[in-house]
């Protein structure tokens, strides 16, 4: 039963990717897509999803979409503008800072780490149980609490709502 319920979200994900990659939705695409996605779900279900009940919670999906939209528009634009300004004026103070991280779930920590890497100006270097080590283009503070406020607080807020 656990195997089946963890297979469903994976199968849905694979089906969406299959149709998007094919770029058309004729009967042939849908039939082969269903076969491929069921096979992938059965084979990879437990490999990918550990707690399937979280996948069926609509609030988590709402927060995922909200986070995606906000990240792609507001956060990315802000970071890009900041880095462009720094490149033109060469006003940079690069360095690695230690940032505490509160979320415990693996996927939410990955979301935070990838979000930090994907915004220009900050790159995740390493991660242990309580801290992320971030290479930052403009080190204004070396205190972990304040660095967290500037770098990862927003990501963590969303990651908690999506995955915890």
């Amino acid at each position: 039963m656990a195997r089946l319920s963890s297979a469903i979200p994976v199968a849905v994900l694979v089906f969406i990717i299959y149709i998007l990659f094919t770029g058309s939705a004729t009967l042939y695409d849908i039939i082969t897509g269903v076969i491929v996605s069921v096979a992938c779900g059965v084979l990879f279900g437990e490999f990918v999803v550990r707690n399937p009940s979280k996948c069926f919670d609509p609030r988590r999906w709402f927060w995922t979409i909200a986070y995606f939209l906000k990240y792609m528009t507001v956060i990315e634009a802000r970071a890009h503008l900041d880095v462009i300004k720094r490149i033109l004026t060469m006003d940079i103070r690069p360095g690695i800072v230690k940032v505490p991280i509160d979320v415990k779930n693996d996927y939410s920590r990955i979301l935070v780490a990838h979000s930090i890497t994907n915004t220009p100006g900050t790159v995740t270097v390493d991660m242990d149980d309580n801290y992320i080590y971030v290479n930052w283009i403009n080190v204004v503070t070396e205190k972990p609490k304040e660095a967290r406020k500037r770098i990862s607080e927003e990501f963590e807020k969303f990651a908690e709502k999506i995955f915890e």
Partner: protein
Amino acid sequence: MKRGHIIALGVFIALILLVSLGITFVGKVPMTTDVRPLGLFYLKNSYFGNYAARSPEVVTSILWDYRGLDTLFETGVFFLAIISALALFRIEKKEEKVKEKGEGFTFIVKDTVRIISVLIVAVSAAIALHGHLTPGGGFQGGSALAVVPLLIIVAFSKYALEGRGLTKDTAMIVRSIGLISIIILVLIPLAAGGYLMQNLPVFPSHILGQLTSGSLVFYNLFEYIAVGAGFTAVFLLLSIPEKVFHKIIGGEKE
């Protein structure tokens, strides 16, 4: 770089430029603006016409219909190359697990690989199963599929795959299933009164009203399985730790 190297490189580039200038002004550049007659035949007949494979993808219809026997024997060469690679790396004793040292990658790499490997399987299946409609096919899809075990070997370890049942032997079994299915597909037209590797009209060109181009979709599917599993077996062999071979061969120094 030494000074001599730079001079040699400069002379070489100058020579290439001079030769191409010479060809442009003195000789004749082989520029084709039309298709050769054989290519024209394939372009005309691939979908319409009396010798049609009923596939809009001309390259796939050449691969598995017009020049099908060539591709069949090339699959044989592929099979032999992988079999002989396996024979070179044969380990007769049961391989014992080498204890891993160190922590490996952080879970950022590992869990990202988990998600990406599923997506690669979806994309490679889409490449293989639409080989008769869009660019792609069994060879390309299978090569893309083989990236998944490679990623898992690098991010986790070889034993993560083998613990889940994907050993060298299962990969070879899956691969043999693909190859045997291809051979059966080759022989079906003989039983139906046609000739070897005939496509239409032995196989239906449409199934449930959807264009499947006769046998092309089946050949692509089984080639996808055979190529993917064959490369998986090779990668599993390549990732055997060197210590295991040290024990068996024993000749080489550290």
